[in-house]
């Protein structure tokens, strides 16, 4: 029962993160929302695997926790490349 309450709370936060992604005035707000969504997904997968009682599904949370980082580092490299080659900052 507690697992259900926790997963509803995480789902509501995911809704708020998507709201920030759609609304956010600058680009970095959306990247922040995407990264936050990813971490909440890893938490949700862990809690829901306890809710459904199937412990094999923890592998998915582990895979997701590892893969979440690559997207934000790619954004940093993209921005660095643009600043270096002088194309100017990412406008909105």
């Amino acid at each position, binding site marked *: 029962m507690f697992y*259900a309450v926790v*997963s*509803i709370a995480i*789902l*509501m936060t*995911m*809704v708020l*993160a*998507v709201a920030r*992604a*759609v609304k956010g005035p600058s*680009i970095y707000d*959306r*990247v922040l*929302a*995407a990264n936050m*969504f*990813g971490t909440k*997904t890893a938490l*949700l*997968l862990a809690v*829901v695997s306890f*809710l*459904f009682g199937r412990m*094999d*599904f923890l*592998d*998915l949370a*582990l*895979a*997701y926790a*590892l*893969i*979440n*980082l*690559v*997207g934000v*580092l*790619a*954004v*940093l*490299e*993209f921005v*660095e*490349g*643009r600043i*270096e*080659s002088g194309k100017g900052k*990412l*406008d*909105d």
Partner: protein
Amino acid sequence: MTIVFALFLLTLLVVTALAIVRTKNLFIATMLLSIFSLLMAVNFFILDAADVALTEAAVGAGVTTVIFLSALRLTSQYERGSLASSRWIAVIVVVTTTVLLISGTINTPNLGDPNAPVHQHVAPFYLENTEALMGFPNVVTAVLSSFRGYDTLGEVFVVFIAAVGVMFILDARQGTGPEYELRVEKGLKHHLIPRAVGGLLIPFMLLFGLYVQFHGEYGPGGGFQAGAIVATAFILHAILEGERTALKAFSRNAQMALIIGGSTLYGAVGVVCMLKGGTFLDYSVLMEDPVTARQVGIIIIELGVGMAVCGALLSIFHSFAARKPVAQAK
């Protein structure tokens, strides 16, 4: 409980899809696509499809986002507007097709209904006989690698063709001229924190990829997921250290060799089965005990699938990332 989850997730899916279509800035669309992909992964998870959820999370939120960002480097940030005259025709065609498709699904059985006709013939055979014929519990891996092995062979060839197609379009041969120079860049070498954390994470990602590869018979996993995770580890290395160092560690020829080796390994298992007296891809003739023989056959072809997927994803990433953008108009 599942209904509550589905309500939240499907609403978020529609909202994200509308936001992706409405934005004109491709960078924003890429970030929203990453969120979309994660929503699909959680949807699959709620529907109890763990293998598909793992593949969607590994490929969609990790590799695809990075490949889109590498492609965005080469082009402009905004999409060109479409012609205004053909918009109403497009809307009418889309709405008509949607109405026809939805009206076609009115009389089909409910999702997951166990009495639907499609679940009466082949599916009970797989569910009842997997433990007896194969000796391991994961029915998805049994169906994918052994009962429907031909289809998976076709999928590996499709992955091969996709990688070769991308290399043709992006002209990945060695040559002279401004667009063939490797772009001079340092990766993230001056940032200490990502390099330190990445150095800790990459060995664990590789180890986890190998675990998922060989554990695919007992839990969610298999060749496709493992290939995507190992490719993500190498892509993280390429982002942190720069293209030059990454291509010295794992050259383009080695990536191509992985794709070719993986596909050939899969086909070779089939040919060996034929030489030993069975039909193509009938693993039970490989050893004396048919159950053990099927397990050995499945391990070898999953290895082939993992190699092919890893090589293909890395080839596609490096085709985009190694290319220097020629001076373009904004």
